[in-house]
C-alpha cells in the first residue's frame, strides 16, 4: 500500500462520509415527512388500529298529534348482531346461530357480505328477536363467539294502522342512502325513516349516536376503555308534534266500509295545518320494521287495493263538479258572468254545440243564475261559462289554485296532477285537429284531462273559504327537545295571496256552496248532516271513471261565515254522492264536537295559542292567521 497516493485516503474518506451523510439525511427527511406531513393521516390509522368505537343508538323522537296524544312511541327490543372480525369464517358459528334464530344460513351470510364499512362494526342479523330465542342464545354464548345481543329501541304504534301513510316507517338504510349521506354518521344496518314524517323529519327525530372507545390489541382483545377518549352519550331525538288530530283521523278511516277505497283531508283553511290526511286502505307500519321479507313486500305491492299508495296526495282523479268553483271564478274574472247572468236553459235534450249535444246530469234546471247553478250543479250553465271564458283563462285560473302542481306538503310522495293547455292538445291530438270549445266544455265541469289529488281539492276549497289565500298544507308543527322540553315551531311556507280574486265574488261562490248543503235544491241536501247551529258550505262532484263506478267527491268548509275547517272526501267508485255521506258525517261531527266543547276557535288556533316557550315564531304565525281572517 506504500505506493498509493497519500492524499487519496482522506479524499476517499471524505467522499465515503459524504455518501453516508447523504443517506442519513435522506432517511431523516423521510422520517420528517412521515411524522410531520403525514402525521395526521397516520395518527388516524394508528387510532383505527387500537380504538373500537362502541356505538350507542339514540332513542328516536316520539310523534304526537295536536292534542299531545302519542301516535308513535318506542319500546325496547333485542337485536342479534355478528361482529365480522370475531367470528373469523367459523362456519359452525353461523350454522348454530341460524338454527337458533330459525333462519337460513344463507341469510346470515348474505347479511355479512352486504356489510359496508368497518370490519369491527357489528352487523345486525335479526331484529326484534323474541325473548325465548334471546334466552337460548344467551345459554349457548360460549359456542357463539362474535355474536352479541343488543338492546335497540323499536317503533310502537298505539293507533295501529291509523295514519300509516303519513307517519311512514323505518327501514334499514340502503347503499344509495349510505352513499348520499356521508358525514351524517350513518352506518350499515342503521334504521332510517322511509316515507312520511319519519322520512321528512329524519334529522330531528333521529337524535345523535353516542360512542365510547375501547382499546384493543393486535389480536382484537379488548384491553379496556381508551383513557384518552371521552365517552359521548347518545342524544335522544326530538319529539315531533304534528297538526294531526289522531282521533279524527281514526274516525275518518273507520268511516269507510271494508271494501271501499278513498281519502279524507281535513285542513285548517287559515294556515294549511292538516287535521286529517287519511288514505284507505292502510297498511301496518310494523310490517316494514327492520328487514321486510320479500313475500310481505310482494303481497303489499300486488294487492289490488294498493294499500301502499297514499291516495290523499298521490291518487289522481277528475275533480268533476267540484271544479265548477274554478269555472265560476274564471267567468267572473273574464266578465263573462255577473250575479244576474243567465244562459240557455237547462232542458231535456241537452245543450247543442256544433254538431254535438251536451247533457246535464239532471236536465230540469231551467234558467238559473250563478248561485243557483252552483247549488244545483247545473252542467249546462257551466258549459256555457266555459265556452265563453275559453281554454287559456280557465287554465290560468286552475293553475292559480295550484292545480297541476304539488302543494308543497312537508312529506314526500305528492304528485302534481295535470290541467291541460293548448300545447297539451297539440301534442296528444295534433295541431289543428281539436276544437277549443269542444275541450273546454268538458273541462268547465271538471271532466276530461284534469287530474287532481284530494289534497289539491282541499287546498282549493281552503282558498275559497279564506278569501283567496293559497295555503301550503303541512303536518309537522313543532319539535320538542327531550333534554329540556324546549319546543321549536317549524317554519311554514306563508300562504300566497291570489290578488286577482275579488272578495265579493268569493263571497258569491261561498253563498252558492252554502246552498249546496242547506238550499232547497242543494245537491248535498240529502247527504249532508245536521249539526245544530253549524252552517256548512260545500260542493259535490261525481268523477267519471272509465274503469268502473264513478268516483264521489265532496269538499266543504265550516262554519260558512268563519271557516275554520275544510273537509274533502273522495270515495273511489263511490258512485253518487251518497257514498261520501258516512265519512263526511263522521268528520264533520267531530268538528262539531270541537266546537261544542267550547275549546275555542278551531284546533289549530287552540294549539298555536298554547303557551309555548318559543312564542316569537308563533306570534308571526298568529299574525298570519289574523291576516287570513281579515284578508
Amino acid at each position, binding site marked *: *500500500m506504500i*505506493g*498509493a497516493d497519500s492524499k*487519496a*485516503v*482522506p479524499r*476517499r*474518506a471524505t467522499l*465515503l*462520509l459524504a455518501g*453516508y*451523510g447523504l*443517506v*442519513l439525511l435522506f*432517511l*431523516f427527511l*423521510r*422520517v*420528517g415527512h*412521515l*411524522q*410531520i406531513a*403525514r*402525521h395526521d*393521516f*397516520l*395518527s388516524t*390509522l*394508528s*387510532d383505527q*388500529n*387500537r380504538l373500537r368505537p362502541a356505538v350507542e343508538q339514540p332513542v328516536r323522537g316520539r310523534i304526537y298529534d295536536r292534542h299531545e296524544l302519542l301516535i308513535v312511541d318506542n319500546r325496547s327490543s333485542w337485536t342479534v348482531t355478528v361482529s365480522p372480525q370475531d367470528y373469523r369464517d367459523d362456519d359452525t358459528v353461523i350454522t348454530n346461530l341460524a338454527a337458533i334464530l330459525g333462519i337460513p344460513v344463507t341469510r346470515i351470510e348474505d347479511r355479512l357480505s352486504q356489510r359496508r364499512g368497518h370490519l369491527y362494526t357489528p352487523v345486525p342479523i335479526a331484529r326484534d328477536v323474541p325473548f325465548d330465542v334471546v334466552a337460548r342464545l344467551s345459554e349457548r354464548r360460549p359456542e357463539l363467539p362474535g355474536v352479541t345481543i343488543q338492546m335497540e329501541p323499536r317503533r310502537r304504534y298505539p293507533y295501529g294502522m291509523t295514519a300509516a301513510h303519513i307517519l311512514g316507517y323505518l327501514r334499514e338504510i340502503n347503499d344509495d342512502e349510505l352513499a348520499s349521506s356521508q358525514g351524517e354518521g350513518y352506518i350499515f344496518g342503521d334504521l332510517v325513516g322511509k316515507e312520511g314524517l319519519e322520512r321528512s323529519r329524519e334529522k330531528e327525530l333521529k337524535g345523535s349516536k353516542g360512542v365510547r372507545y375501547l*382499546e*384493543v*390489541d*393486535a*389480536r382484537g382483545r379488548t*384491553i379496556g376503555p381508551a383513557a384518552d377518549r371521552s365517552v359521548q352519550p347518545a342524544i335522544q331525538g326530538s319529539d315531533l308534534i304534528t297538526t294531526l288530530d289522531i282521533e279524527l283521523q281514526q274516525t275518518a278511516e273507520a268511516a269507510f266500509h271494508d271494501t271501499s277505497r278513498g281519502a279524507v283531508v281535513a285542513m285548517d283553511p287559515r294556515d294549511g295545518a292538516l287535521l286529517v290526511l287519511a288514505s284507505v286502505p292502510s297498511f301496518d307500519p310494523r310490517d316494514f320494521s327492520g328487514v321486510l321479507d320479500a313475500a310481505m313486500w310482494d303481497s303489499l305491492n300486488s294487492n289490488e287495493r294498493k294499500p301502499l299508495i297514499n291516495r290523499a296526495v298521490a291518487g289522481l282523479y277528475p275533480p268533476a263538479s267540484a271544479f265548477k268553483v274554478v269555472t265560476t271564478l274564471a267567468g267572473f274574472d273574464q266578465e263573462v258572468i255577473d250575479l244576474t247572468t243567465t244562459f240557455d236553459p237547462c232542458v231535456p235534450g241537452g245543450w247543442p254545440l256544433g254538431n254535438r249535444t251536451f247533457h246535464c246530469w239532471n236536465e230540469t234546471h231551467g234558467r238559473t243564475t250563478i248561485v243557483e247553478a252552483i247549488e244545483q250543479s247545473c252542467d249546462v250553465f257551466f258549459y256555457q261559462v266555459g265556452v265563453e271564458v275559453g281554454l287559456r283563462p280557465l287554465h290560468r285560473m286552475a293553475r292559480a289554485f295550484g292545480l297541476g302542481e304539488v302543494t308543497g306538503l312537508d312529506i314526500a310522495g305528492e304528485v302534481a296532477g295535470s290541467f291541460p293547455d293548448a300545447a297539451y292538445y297539440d301534442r296528444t291530438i295534433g295541431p289543428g285537429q281539436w276544437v277549443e270549445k269542444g275541450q273546454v266544455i268538458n273541462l268547465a265541469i271538471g271532466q276530461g284531462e284534469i287530474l287532481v289529488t284530494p289534497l289539491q281539492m282541499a287546498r282549493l276549497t281552503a282558498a275559497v273559504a279564506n278569501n283567496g289565500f293559497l295555503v301550503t298544507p303541512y303536518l309537522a308543527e313543532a319539535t320538542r327537545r327531550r333534554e329540556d322540553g324546549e319546543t321549536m315551531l317549524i317554519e311554514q311556507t306563508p300562504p300566497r295571496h291570489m290578488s286577482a280574486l275579488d272578495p265579493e265574488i268569493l263571497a258569491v261562490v261561498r253563498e252558492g256552496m252554502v246552498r249546496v248543503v242547506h238550499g232547497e235544491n242543494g245537491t248535498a241536501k240529502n247527504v249532508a248532516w245536521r249539526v245544530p247551529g253549524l252552517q256548512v258550505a260545500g260542493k259535490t262532484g261525481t268523477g267519471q271513471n272509465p274503469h268502473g263506478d264513478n268516483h264521489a267527491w265532496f269538499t266543504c268548509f265550516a262554519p260558512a261565515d268563519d271557516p275554520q275547517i275544510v273537509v274533502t272526501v273522495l270515495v273511489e267508485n263511490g258512485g253518487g254522492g251518497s257514498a261520501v255521506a258516512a265519512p263526511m258525517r263522521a268528520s264533520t261531527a267531530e268538528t262539531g264536537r270541537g266546537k261544542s266543547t267550547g275549546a275555542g276557535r278551531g284546533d289549530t288556533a287552540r294549539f298555536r295559542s298554547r303557551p309555548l316557550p318559543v312564542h316569537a315564531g308563533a306570534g308571526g304565525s298568529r299574525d298570519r292567521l289574523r291576516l287570513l281572517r281579515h284578508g
Partner: protein
Amino acid sequence: MLGLVAVGIVFVYSATVENAQVVAPLHTRQAIWALAGLVAIVVATRLPQQFFYGAAYIFFAIVMLALLALLVVGGGEGGRWFVFSSGVRIQPSEPAKLVLVLAVARYLSGRLVDFRRARDYLIPLGLAFIPFALVMRQPDLGTAMIFPVIIVPMLYWKGLPLWVIFLLCTPILSVVTAFNPLIWGAAMIIIGLVVWRKRVKPSLAMLVIILNIGLGVLTPVIWDNLHEYQRNRISTFGAGYQIIQSTVAVGSGGLTGKGYLQGTQTKLNFLPDQHTDFIFSVIAEETGLLGVLIVLLLFAGLLHRTLKAAIEVRNPFAGLIIAGASGVFFAHIMINIGMSLGLLPITGLPLPFISYGGSHLLSMMGLAGIILSLRMRWMEY
C-alpha cells in the same frame, strides 16, 4: 470513541426497556450481552494489531465452518441459530460479518494489490460469496445480501475506482430491473456505455455483459422457483402488514412522540418484531422526530469517528478494517431504517447496537473494540 460506544450501550438498554412491557426478561438478557460486549471491547483493546492480522483467516475459517455446520446439523427457527441446552442461542451469521471484514482487510493489505488485475478484487468478492452462499441456504436472504455489500467500501478504500464499483454493482441492478424489459434495457445501455468509455479489457467487458444479460434473463426464472414465503417477504414490500404498521408507528409519533412506554402501536403489539427488526419504529413512535434526530446524529457521529480513525491509523490493514467496519455499520443502519420507513423490502437486518440480539450486539461491540484497539495503536505500522 469509547464515549460513543457507551452511548450506544445506553441505547441498547433503553430500547430494550421499552420492550419490557412486551417481553419482560429480554432487556436484562440484552444487558448481559452488553456487558459481555464491554468485556469484548476491553479484551480487544488489549490485543496487538498483529493478533488480528494473524488471526484473520483463522477466524474466518472457524466462522465459515460454523455456518456450514449449521446447515448440516440444522438450527432452531429457520436454521439461523445454534440453540444450546441452556437456552442460549448463537447466530453465526453475525460474527461472519466481523470476520469477513478481517479476512478481506488482510487480503487487500497483505501484498501489493493492483486493481488492474481483476483477480485482486474478484478474490475479496469470492471471500464474501462464501458466507453469502452459506447464509442464503439457511435461508436468510436479507442477512446474506449484507456480505457483498460490506466489502464495497473496503474495495473503494483500497483504491478501486468508482466505475469499477458501479460495474460490480450491475448484477444487482440487473436483478432489480429484470422484471421490466424497458428499464432493464436502459440499464444495459448505461452499463455498455461505462464499459466503452473506460476501455475495459475485452475479456472483462464480455464477462460483465454476459453476466448481466444472464441475470436479466434468469431472475424471473429464479423468482418462480423461490419458496412462497420468500417471495411474499420480498413482494409485499411497501404494502405488507408489517410495513404499514411500521409506517403508521413512525408517522403517528409526530414531532415529540407519544411518550416513553406510551406507543400504542408498540404496546398493543400492532408493530411486529418490535424489539429486533422494527426497534427504530418504536423509537420514532415514542420519542418522535426529536428522538429520531438524536439517534441519527449518534449514528452520524459513529460513522464520522470511525472514518476519522480509518484515516489516522497508519497501518493499511488497520485502515481497511476500520473502513470495512464503517461499511458494516452503515449498511445495517441504511437497510434497517429504510425498511422501517417503507423504503426498502423487509430483510430482517438489525439496527446496530440497538436491536435486541446477543450475537449481533456482541459482534458489533467486538468490531467497535477492534476499532478502538487499532486506533490506540495508530502509530504502529
